[in-house]
Structure formats: C-alpha cells, structure tokens
C-alpha cells in the first residue's frame, strides 16, 4: 500500500457512503437496501489483506455512524466492521483467480453484517419479524453479489493502476 492507494481507499469508501443513503436507499428496491459499503470494504480487504481490511472496516463503520442520517451509537459499527474487515483480509492470502469467489464472499459478508445489525436492533428494542428478516436476508446477499460483479474488478484495476508493489511490501502498513 502506497500513499495513493490509501487515498483511493478513503475516496472510494466516502463515495460509497454518499451513494448508500442517497441513491441505493432511494431506489426503493424490493427487500433490503443494497449495501455498497460492505462490497467496497470486502473488495479492499480481499485485495490487500487483513491490515487494510481492518482500516477500511474502521473507516466504513465510522462513516455509517457519523454521516447523516446515521443516528447510531458512534463507534459501534466501527467495532463490528473493523473485525469483519480484518477477518475477510485473511481470505486474501489464498490468491485465486476465480470470478465467483469475491461475489460469494461479498454476499456472505453482507449477510453477516445484516445479522449483526439485526441482533443489535433487537437488543435496542426493535421487534423481530421472521418474514421481513428472511426477505431482507436473501435480497441483501443477492444485491451484494450483484454489486461485487462491478466493484471488485473496478477496485482491482484501481489497485493495479496505482503502482506495482512487491508482495512483501503489500502486507506492511
């Protein structure tokens, strides 16, 4: 990771954080809102490893909590997403060129974060409806996989464009 790549990481996450509530949420698609933030985070973690994954997770969580209309307890999403980004980063060490792999991982991460959020919502007093949960769970994974089709290659390209770096240096922060 060089400076430009960190810059690209921050910019891509900020763009996703702006698009999430103003574009994807306003499309009123059936089921859940497509979670572009999770897909961007997963792509960076998959490409660059646990350290970058954790940083991307922290930044994503911070923006979720702090940008309007986010009204959560500040820092709570950062905790979950830092850990999620860190763990996803470990999957990067198994470098495979499979096209489907990032899609499946994105969908699973989106689903895991959705479950975490649901549990958190229940703790803070929301009611649980199996119907809504099931529909949102399925669509959440589906939308994340669809988004990953475009976002994972785009971020991979960005990463390549911003300069080759040896594998040994990659893991360094």
């Amino acid at each position: 990771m060089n400076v430009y790549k960190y810059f690209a990481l921050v910019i891509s996450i900020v763009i996703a954080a702006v698009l999430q509530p103003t574009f994807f949420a306003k499309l009123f698609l059936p089921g859940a809102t497509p979670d572009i933030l999770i897909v961007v985070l997963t792509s960076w973690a998959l490409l660059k490893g646990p350290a970058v994954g954790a940083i991307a997770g922290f930044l994503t969580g911070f923006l979720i909590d702090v940008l309007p209309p986010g009204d959560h307890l500040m820092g709570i999403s950062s905790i979950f997403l830092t850990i999620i980004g860190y763990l996803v980063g470990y999957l990067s060490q198994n470098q495979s060129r499979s096209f489907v792999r990032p899609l499946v991982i994105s969908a699973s991460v989106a689903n895991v974060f959705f479950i975490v959020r649901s549990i958190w919502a229940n703790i803070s007093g929301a009611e649980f409806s199996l119907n809504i949960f099931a529909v949102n769970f399925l669509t959440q994974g589906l939308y994340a996989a669809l988004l990953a089709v475009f976002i994972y290659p785009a971020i991979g390209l960005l990463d390549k464009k911003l300069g080759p770096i040896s594998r040994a240096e990659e893991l360094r922060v």
Partner: protein
Amino acid sequence: MRDSTRLRTVLAVLLLLSFTFVALELRTSGSGLTKSLREFTANVISPIQESSSNFTNSIKNFSNTWTEIRTARSQVKDLQSENLLLKEELAKSEENRRRAAELDALLKLAGIGTYEIVPAKVIAIGSAQDYSWTITIDVGQIDGITTDMTVLTGQGLVGRTVSVANSSSTVALLADPSSKVGARIGGKGELGFIGGTGLPSELEFELFDPIAEINKGDRIVTWGSENGRPFVPGVPIGEVISIKSSPGLLTKSARVKPYVNLSTLDLVSVVVEQPRIDPRDSLLPPAPVTPTPSPSISISPSPSPSVE
C-alpha cells in the same frame, strides 16, 4: 514475524479508537465532541448528498421515460417521434402533478391545523434501512429548524427532528424503536403512548388506563407536548388494527397502522410554529363507517393563548 505484530497493533489501535467513540458518546450522551463531529460532517456532506439525491431523482425520471420509449417502439414508425415527445412531457407532468398533490395535502393539513410549516425534500434514507428509521431532509438551521420539531406529511405524522446542521437535518421516524409519542384516541380522550417497533407498518399504542375502551378502527392523533415540542397537538398518526390482550398487565396496548407510508417518503414538512388553538380531531380523515361517538370531555392539555 514483524508483519503480524504490526497487524495486531493496527487492529488494536482501531478497536481502541472505536471503543473510545462509544465511551465518549455514552458519557456525554450525544453532546460534546461526538455532537460537534456529527455536525461538522453533516455540514460538509449534506450538499454532496443533496446533489447525489437530485441525481437519483433524475435517473428515476429518466428510467420511467425510458420504459415508455421502449413500449412506443413497437408502434407505427411515424408516430414514434411524436409519441416520444408527448410521453416524455407526460412523465414529467405526472411527477409534477404528484408532487403538487402532495404539497396540496400538506397545505390543507397545515391550513386546518394552522401550523406554520417549512416544506422539505428527503435527501437521504437511513443506511441501515432494515431497522434504523432515520432520514435526512434538506432544511436546517438557516430555515429556522431546531431539534425536537414535528415532521409531518399531508397524511399525518412522520417523526421529529433529532439533529440539525446548517442546511440539513436528521429526522427520527415514528417506526424507530426509540421513538415515543404522546397520543390519544380521536373522539374519546383516552391517553397513551405510541412507540416504534422497528417495523414500517406497525406501531404500538399503549394506553394509560387499563380499563379504557379501545376498538379496531379507532383513530389516533397526537396529544401534544409542552410548547409543541417535540410534537404539536392534533396530528393524525394512524388507525388501530388489532388489540393486544394483556391480562395481568397494568396497561392495555394495541397495534396501529400509521397513515403515512414510512418507507417511501419524498416530500415532508416541519412544523416551526404550533397552532394557537388545539385542532383536536379536525385533521383526522373522515371516518369510514359509523360516525365516531360524540366527543366527551377529555384531559388533553388546554391550549395556551400564546400571545408574545
């Protein structure tokens, strides 16, 4: 290995930072540093959010027009160009007409209730739409908005403002689990609280009086807070859809379906000044079947003649 030590350090620092935010917010209960951080980011980001939201709207309009173009293609060729123009106009005017109707309804509600309102567009919808029920609207401090003001549409209550930046504010919707609204049954005087359940089309109405009578189809209005904050009196909230039997409990509760569709909001308005006279039940939509029983004397707060 050095790498893994560094990795662990990064993780530890980030987690520590997150926990610090949580602790700070809990300690200052949403004021102080975290509040100013929120205000700062809101001021920076809301112009960007607004233009992104406008972009979304134009895309939606365009895609509407686009589907219409595609159906027109199958028709006779020389009609095509004319058709295209006409349909485009139609799509545009339909959207305008819909908005005009929404504004009309708003003005009517505000007119009968004599609320002073500021109309607003929804620019962002809670990122975790599944459970967190918040929206951002495009009016803020410079439009005279402060926290704890009532937000409504032509159909009824939407929620209240919870944080305000220069030109945008965040609204907690009725459905948010943390939301609580003082309410009474229209036509009777029975008081209670409407609480969010985290589900879009169901609210929970809790009556203070365990032996009070409540029926399916009863309509609920706001009861009004002191000085009209956070809720002005007389705004329609919703209709009772089922009653929960709760033997042994001190309160009685019912399920209420809100009049406003909380998951597809577009135009809303913020009440900046409360009515001089409590509008009571005058804002409720006409009763469907039987007329509501004659209003009895109730204990809702008497309107204060606010001559300043």
